[in-house]
Structure formats: C-alpha cells, structure tokens
C-alpha cells in the first residue's frame, strides 16, 4: 500500500542547532503509530516539521504523494494534517465551543462536527460556554483533540497526549482513540509512556538524539529492545 506520509532523511534546525538528523518515517493509511523517546529526542520537533511549525526541506516530507516540507502551517492543515500540540495550547480568550470552531477554519469536508464531538466528549457540551482554559487538564486535552478533529484531517498528530494528566484521565483520553480511528483516520501519537504506546499502537518508532533508534511492530518489540533504543543503554 502506498504510504500516506513519508519522510526521507528529514533534518530540522533551531537556528544553528540541528535537532533532527535524517529521519526516515513511513505511515500507511489507517495506521496508528506511536513515537517514543526521552526528552530532547526530537519527537516534538518531528511533529512540528510535519505541520510546518519548523521549516523542513520540501522534498523531505511527502504527504499523499505531494512534497509538503516547509509549506506554511495553514497550507498543510488544508491538505489534511492536524496537530494536537504538546501542552494543549488552547486559546485562553475563547470558550470551549469557540476553540473547537477554530479547528474548522480550514473548512475541510468530513464527518467531524460540533455535534459529533459532543457525542465523543459529552462533558464538552456541558461546558461549551466556559473559557477553554478554565477546564481541567483532561478536559482541555479533549478540547485540543476536538479542535484538531474539527478540521476533518486525514492524518491526526497527537503530541504528548498524557503530559501532566492523572492515569485515570489518560485512560479516558485514550479510550476515545478507537472511535477516532474508526473513521479510517491515520494517527501518530507521541508518547513517553512506553507501555501505553505499545498497547494502543500498531507500530512504534523510537527516537534518540534526533535519529530513529528503533522501529517495528508494537507487539513484536521487547522491553530490552525498547530500553536500549530509548536510553541508549542495555537493559
């Protein structure tokens, strides 16, 4: 099957500092892939490179057969890639509903609407008039996911969904993933919780110091392999 997303030798820089060193990454339509790695491994930079927040050479990122590296974020979201950013980053002066509506700015056709989201996350309907940032961390994460879904993406990128959330809330958030994937959506999650990443994903990429240190089917990777790839140490 042709890859929905592929990167070849992807590099990224912050000023003079290089953050990614030739990332090769493939994603088939409908897959759920997890990226794991320690802090500073380049996971978030990779996500930002895919969405245009960090500039990438044009040919190094291809989505649905088209070179999209370095395009502005607005152009990339119109092509069907949406990001749930690390730390959620809701708009503080917008209500829950307004935050969700901002996601629909790209006006892509698809199954996701306010009503559909409120079925997925009923608590958001009750709190639709409240400022987005007045919600609990888990509810804010629901808004961030919902905002990304409102653009009706083909590919949903989730950066650190579980960051700063209680385990019970994390389970609640991840419980929504099957419903999202049921629409045929392709999903990439960045996750520091290795057990969770293995449990929910079909394949795993492990990043270390801006490079891919390990990849494979989630069910086939052993704890030892992951430990070595994650920390660069023997388990």
């Amino acid at each position, binding site marked *: 099957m042709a890859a929905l997303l592929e990167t070849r030798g992807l590099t990224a820089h912050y000023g003079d500092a290089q953050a990614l060193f030739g990332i090769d990454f493939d994603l088939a339509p409908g897959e759920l892939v997890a990226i794991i790695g320690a802090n500073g491994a380049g996971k978030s930079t990779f996500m930002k490179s895919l*969405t*245009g*927040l960090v500039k990438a050479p044009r040919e190094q990122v291809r989505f649905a057969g088209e070179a999209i590296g370095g395009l*502005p*974020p*607005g152009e990339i*979201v*119109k092509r069907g890639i949406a*990001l749930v*950013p690390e730390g959620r*980053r809701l*708009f*503080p*002066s*917008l209500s829950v509903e*307004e935050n969700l*509506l*901002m*996601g629909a*700015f*790209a006006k892509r056709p698809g199954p996701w609407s306010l009503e559909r989201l409120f079925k997925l996350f009923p608590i958001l309907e009750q709190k639709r008039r409240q400022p987005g940032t007045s919600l609990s961390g888990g509810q804010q994460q629901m808004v961030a996911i919902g*905002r990304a879904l409102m*653009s009706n993406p083909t590919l949903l990128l989730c950066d650190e969904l579980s960051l700063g959330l209680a385990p019970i809330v994390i389970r609640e958030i991840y419980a929504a993933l099957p419903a999202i994937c049921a629409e045929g959506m392709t999903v990439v999650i960045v996750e520091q919780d290795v057990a969770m990443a293995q449990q929910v994903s079909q394949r795993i990429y492990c990043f270390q110091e801006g490079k891919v240190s390990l990849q494979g089917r989630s069910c086939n990777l052993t704890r030892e392999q992951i430990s070595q790839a994650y920390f660069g140490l023997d388990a």
Partner: protein
Amino acid sequence: MIETLLQGLLLGGLYCLFALGQSLMFGVMRLTNTAQGDFIILGAFAAIAALGVAAVSPWLVALLLLPVAFGFGYLLQRHVLNGTLGRDPLPSLVVTFGLAIVIQNLLLELFSADPRSIETDGLNTQSIVLPGGLAIGVLPLLIFAIAVGATAALQWLFNRTALGRAFRAVSDDREIAELMGLDARKIYASATGIAFVLIAIAGVLQAMRTTVSPADGPLLLLFAFEAVIIGGMGSFWGTLIGALLLGVTQQIGFRIDPGWGIWAGHIVFLGVLVVRPQGLFPKTRG
C-alpha cells in the same frame, strides 16, 4: 456641576473615538501605533481636501472616506507594519513614530500650519436645551452616540463573529492560530483596516467639532493613549469608560482653572498607572 459632568462625558465620547483604533491594534497585535493622532489628523485633512474639490455634504465625504481608510490601513499593515511585529516592540514603535513625522511634515507642506475645519451648516453650534437651563451641543451628542455605537459594534465583532474569533485567536497564540489555517498577516491587516475606519471617523468628527492643524496629532495620541491605559489595554468598553473618565476629569479641571484641564487628565492617568497599571478593565472580552 451637572453641566460640567455632561460636557465631560461628551468630550470623552470624542476621546473614545480617538482611542478605539489604538485599543483594537493593541488588542490584536500588541502593536502601539504612535502615529495614531497623526493618522486622525490625516483623516481630517483628507475630508477637508475632498470637500475642497467637491462641494457635497461632509457626511457623504465621511462615508466615502471609510472604505478608503480601510484599504489604506489594510495595505499599511500588510506591507509595512507586519514586518515590524515580533517579540521586540521597538521596531513597530520606531516605524510608527517615523510615520508620524512623515505625516506631520506632509500635511504642513500640503496645507500649511493654518488651522482648518469642516463646515457643518451650523450643526456644531446647535444645542438642545434640557430641564434646569442646561444645554448640550447637538454635534457633541452625536459624536457621543457614534462613540458608544462604535464601541458596541467593535465588542460585538470581537465576541460574536468568526472574524472576532480569529482576532482573539491570533492575539492569544499566533502559531497555533496559523496551525488552524489562519493567515495571521491577513487577520492583522483586517484589524488595522477596521482601526483606520475608526481613525477616519474620529478625524472627520474632530474637524467638524473644532479646528485641526498638522501639528495636532501628538496631543490626540496622548488622549488616545491615556484613555486606553485608564480603561485597560485591549478592552473596548474599558476604552470608552477610560475616555469618559478622562473627559470628565479634564472638564472638572477646566472648570477650576482653564489652564488645569489637560493637567487634571494627566494626573488621573498617572494615578491609574500607579494604583492599577493594568487599567480598569484589562480584557478583550465583553
């Protein structure tokens, strides 16, 4: 005393129109337009020049000026001011300060230093007599109504429309707003376009109410700035209340001594800065 209060409120209405554009540009872009007063005077002279060419109603000229002002503001933001935006506020301050100097000298060259005004067929001398022997000017009352209407319209735009949502989103987090598909440069340009519509309205009404000369801009900027600071940066209703407070304070000062009016306003401004530096209503929400 009631007459002083009323005159102060009416004067505050005019100050509100001076300040709303400033409040909008700061609220959306965190940009302090130090040429605000000079753009108001430019708007006034644009209307005076147009009336010199075609002898039509000043209200018609004002109406025709609005889309021109929007286009001017849009293009100014798109091609000049967007390049100055960033974490460092200095470039935008320097560029707008430079524009202020250019506008003042351009107007001096074109119109000389002579004060001019817009003839309103006596509207600026008409008044309404209230019970108790009080009289208020029709034009100041009209300006006050326009100021309240403009404030309400701007707050409605911000709180109830998709464009207002976009304004608030790019103001909150430009990067994430662009991730949603917004082009922040166009959103900024739209905000400045609307700010310049308000600037044009303020300029025409100022020239109808009194005389204007090319050197008036800095004083109008000062009043606009004080109103915005007193009310709270980025809050439109706050800007209106700040402007009214400034107008009333100045009128009380004028009543005590004709030389004290402007000073009284400055003292209230300084008092607010010391006691409540964030202003009285520091939010861009209704």
